[in-house]
């Protein structure tokens, strides 16, 4: 069990190339469930390798609790990693789970007990005598998970553990991982490009892009208070809309319409160019004209396959997406409203403004 601290971590694979990870500072508290979330190439796997010791960062230090482990090799860090493609050995499931314990100086009966407990926990008790290589990806992943559980490691790192699992077995394995994780209460870092996995497994999520951690926050805040435009877009389906406009006195001018700002706003002085963020699910849509609502043309009405439609709307200068329960014909007009409670404001660089 350990708190994991990353201090000013930067990693450059090849001189002259942009860093794969840049200036990352995060503290993963002891016994918490965390996720690293970002698109492919964002640096999340590099960061994972640095934490487990497979890669030494170009700059920065790593601490487990208060101990500097930056120079420790992976085997001395006692961290468990569960990979995308589970590795099992060509031996029985029982022997697979026993493998990490073979050289430990503890009584045989104790080892056996631990293996059986873990087999139960990961749901392979009925498979103990089966050769592990004969099993499908979901069961192999269970065994891989079991093999690290018997070791009682300091922390668990999951690297996209579900992406190679048969689709029909995914949700069962998800609920099992979730259950094991809640029971163990260990420090966990779950690496994924999938927002659902991140928000399902973690209490706190670090959203990454281009080597940087853009926001490390609770799952509620990641959705409700994105620190920048990227996080706003990356979370949610469809992602947050952003409209570029200019502040003129008490309005934001969007060329085709303007948004009236509430009084007593504490916005930075001399602020002109801003981005307004609004999530598709928060936009109110009406087929009939409404006073003070904005008129948009329907470019497309696409079924989501989940009981609602996603409507693509535009004016001459702005394009947005909204959700709609009913079908709206292409080419027709709708009127939309952006409720004040759901408005996010960002500066021209896309960073959240408090107001």
């Amino acid at each position: 069990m350990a708190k994991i601290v990353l201090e000013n971590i930067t990693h450059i694979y090849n001189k002259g190339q942009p860093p794969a990870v840049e200036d990352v500072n995060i503290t993963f508290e002891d016994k918490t469930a965390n996720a690293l979330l970002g698109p492919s190439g964002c640096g999340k796997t590099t960061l994972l390798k640095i934490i487990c010791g497979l890669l030494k960062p170009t700059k920065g230090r790593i601490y487990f609790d208060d101990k500097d482990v930056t120079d420790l090799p992976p085997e001395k860090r006692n961290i468990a990693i569960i990979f995308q493609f589970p590795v099992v050995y060509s031996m029985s499931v029982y022997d697979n789970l026993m493998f990490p314990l073979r050289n430990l100086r503890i009584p045989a009966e104790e080892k056996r007990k631990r293996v059986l407990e873990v087999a139960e926990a990961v749901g392979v008790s009925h498979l103990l005598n089966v050769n592990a290589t004969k099993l499908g990806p979901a069961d192999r992943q269970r065994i891989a998970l079991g093999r690290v559980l018997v070791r009682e490691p300091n922390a668990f790192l999951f690297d996209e553990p579900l992406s190679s699992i048969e689709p029909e077995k995914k949700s069962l394995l998800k609920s099992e991982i979730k259950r094991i994780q809640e029971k163990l209460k260990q420090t966990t870092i779950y690496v994924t490009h999938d927002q659902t996995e991140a928000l399902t497994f973690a209490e706190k999520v670090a959203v990454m892009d281009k080597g940087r951690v853009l926001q490390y926050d609770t799952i509620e805040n990641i959705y409700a208070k994105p620190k920048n435009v990227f996080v706003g877009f990356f979370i949610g389906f469809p992602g947050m809309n952003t409209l570029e406009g200019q502040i003129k006195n008490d309005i934001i001018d969007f060329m085709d319409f303007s948004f009236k700002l509430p009084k007593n706003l504490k916005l930075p002085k001399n602020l002109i160019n801003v981005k307004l963020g609004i999530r598709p699910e928060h936009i109110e849509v009406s087929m009939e004209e409404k006073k003070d609502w904005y008129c948009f043309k329907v470019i497309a009405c696409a079924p989501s396959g989940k009981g609602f439609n996603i409507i693509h709307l535009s004016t001459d200068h702005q394009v947005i997406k909204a959700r709609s329960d009913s079908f709206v014909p292409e080419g027709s007009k709708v009127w939309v409203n952006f409720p004040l409670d759901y408005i996010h404001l960002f500066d021209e660089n896309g960073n959240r403004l408090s107001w």
Partner: protein
Amino acid sequence: MTKIELKNISKSFFGQKVLDNVSLTISSGTFMSLLGPSNAGKTTLLKIIAGVIKPDSGQIFFDDVDVTDWPPQKRNVGVIFQTFALYPNLTVYENIASPLRMKKLPENEIDKKVKDQARILKLEQLLDKKPNELSGGEAQRTALARALVKEASIYLLDEPLTNLDYKLREVMSIELKKILQSKKSTIIYATPSPEEARLFSDYVAFLQNGKILHYGSVNESFTLPPSVEVAKLCSTPSMNLIEGHLTTKEGKLILDIADRLKLDVTNLNLPTDENEYLIGIYPYNLYLYPKTQDSIGINSELILQEIAGSDMTVHFKWNNATLVAYFPFVKILDKNFKIYIEPSDILIYSKRTGRLVQKYKKVV
């Protein structure tokens, strides 16, 4: 535009049957999805239509002409495969131009077509780049441009969005749809995703274990899936199917589901010789609040709540059944909570045949 007709196509690899007597007529100009899980035989079927592999038996007709023995280049089919290979040493421009160079078109015509296609797919700024300098989405757009640049009367797309990040899929899907629609060609779009099939196409063929389960309009097929097998492919997560049996009570015919949920089906004309049924409910047709006065509440026990920012998928237990609900919002649920079913959303399937009997209608 070309009408495609497949007659009794079968194909085996190493003794394993991949396509089993597939027959399908796709009218000219149809935008069709070929929907099926992995290993259903989708890629093999597309390759047979493209002429890259030959069927063991059966025939293919384009506009009533037997093309079964035609080589790929004679068929004029545009193909985009899931794992698209760009020429690594050629620029984006030259990659897009490559099919036109093969046709030995004059240089000025090639230049015009490449630039037009690049404009449509927003690749104008990238024309001088090499594939290793491109992001996943840019590489995918380049592959698309290369396939679309030669005018074909048939386009075959094999999961073109599957290998993209989900955010890129979100951005590209409607764009891709518009581009394909503007082609006015016959299009077959293979996908494992029912959501993509609904979004893209007008018609859908359900393929499983090498067999066509159903072919019909998207609207009808997804609203009233004709069989349990088809219904299971119609949404992610899959449709809930709960067992129920017929009983009579006070002269009324009751469909009794696990002794908890009783539906009056007296006026529904269910077949009198069958007692066992499956009731189907889409995950998105389950609610956390009563929607109408007919709503039926069931006591549920939470298994797993999957959160996706603005949505959630909830796995829960009701009696002995494990069910799934999808909600377009997020709310943290307690261990025990109530789920509401709208009777008018219920589909009734025969347990024996797996066929759709009918949609539940309220008794008046």
